[in-house]
């Protein structure tokens, strides 16, 4: 049941992001709803649920919009693993938790993309990427994550998605 709800949420997020959210952009950039949802699941729920959300979100994006199958799955899995691993050790859950985690997730995502593309032979202006892509997306992701964490996090709690802690398999 939990996994069904997680899969449905990730699918609905994917549909919204590829259609409706295309109209909500800041400086030409939009929020990465899949990443935001993975952060919410990883922080609020036990590790397998966070990982599962990363797999669903990653596979959906890989199917439709990735130049190499597995790229988004790898990135999102790394994010979900990392957040699940560090959340219990470094942070007590507070209002700042989603903000810090989504900032980490956004930077981690871009870092991995840059590394993958570097090895694929592409060259780019890192300063332009930071100013025109990372900063606006970071800003939007923080806003979206804070809102979703407040609303969706409570719903998850009521539905029995419990956060048990570091490396727990529930």
């Amino acid at each position, binding site marked *: 049941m939990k996994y069904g709800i997680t899969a449905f949420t990730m699918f609905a997020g994917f549909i919204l992001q590829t259609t409706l959210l295309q109209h909500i952009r800041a400086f030409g950039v939009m929020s990465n709803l899949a990443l935001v949802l993975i952060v919410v699941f990883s922080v609020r729920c036990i590790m397998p649920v966070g990982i599962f959300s990363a797999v669903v979100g990653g596979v959906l994006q890989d199917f439709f919009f990735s130049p190499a199958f*597995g790229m988004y799955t790898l990135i999102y899995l790394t994010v979900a693993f990392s957040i699940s691993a560090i959340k219990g050790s470094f942070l007590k859950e507070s209002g700042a938790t989603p903000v810090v985690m989504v900032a980490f997730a956004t930077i981690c995502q871009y870092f991995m993309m840059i590394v993958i593309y570097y090895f694929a032979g592409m060259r780019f202006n890192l300063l332009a990427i930071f100013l025109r892509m990372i900063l606006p997306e970071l800003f939007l992701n923080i806003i979206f994550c804070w809102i979703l964490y407040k609303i969706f996090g409570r719903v998850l709690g009521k539905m029995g998605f419990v956060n048990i802690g570091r490396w727990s398999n529930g």
Partner: protein
Amino acid sequence: MNEFKKKKIMAGIAILLLLFLIIATFGGGGEISPIENFAGKNVALIQRGFTVGADFFGNIFNPVANIWRLDKINKELEIENQELRRKLIAATLSQKEKEDLSQMKKALNYAQSKGYDFLTCDVVSKDPGTWFNMFIINKGTNDGVYQEQAVINGDGLIGIVYEAGKDWAKVVSIIDNKSSVSFKLLDEKDFSIGIVEGGAERGLSGYLFNPKAEVHAGQEIITSGIGIYPEGLLIGTISDVIIEKNELLKRIKVEEVVDFKTINRVMVLLPLKEVEAQ
């Protein structure tokens, strides 16, 4: 072996598998698998519904949200309109204008002359990330859409079909990181050619092979016909020319003519043979 170690090993295996998949499939552009086809067809249906709804509300709310920007654009357009009117009057009797119009007519009708026909497609969904510039259209191999066919709209070149399923296809736009287009200057005398590429920075950038080419900001560029894009499609306007003494190339920045954020309908260029066969 404790639980923690087991999970670390599993994570390591998953990462290795995914890295192998990424290396094996990088560049894509092949045929879409039956699983992708099935998923794509059904998801595209849902996405189409959402896109139509989103566009409907977007058309209502966007002008309100952008009212200050639109006011500024309106003023700029007024000035541009006056300038264009002056130019039009000045050029009415000139032979060059006749030639320009003939050139435009050629550009508009070039599809037929080059042996192509159009297939109009709706954009079903767009790339969720900011890194790539891909989108999905609602026509596929059943309609004659195949890999490496050029995609355009009324403004100019949009991109190319990257992968095609039976009823849907992925299009990669010319501003995408992995896109590169061979171009030539739209000039009566100088037909110098070069390459423009998409990138993380907005707009296109590229270079001319001939360092002595007479190129300046404001000049338009079209596809050269070398490579996969047919000749004569408008790409954009040169916004900056950078001359680097150490290099034997003239670098340019290009502002694309198509607004990639607002495209909802595109045309795929089909070779006439395929159209007749259908």
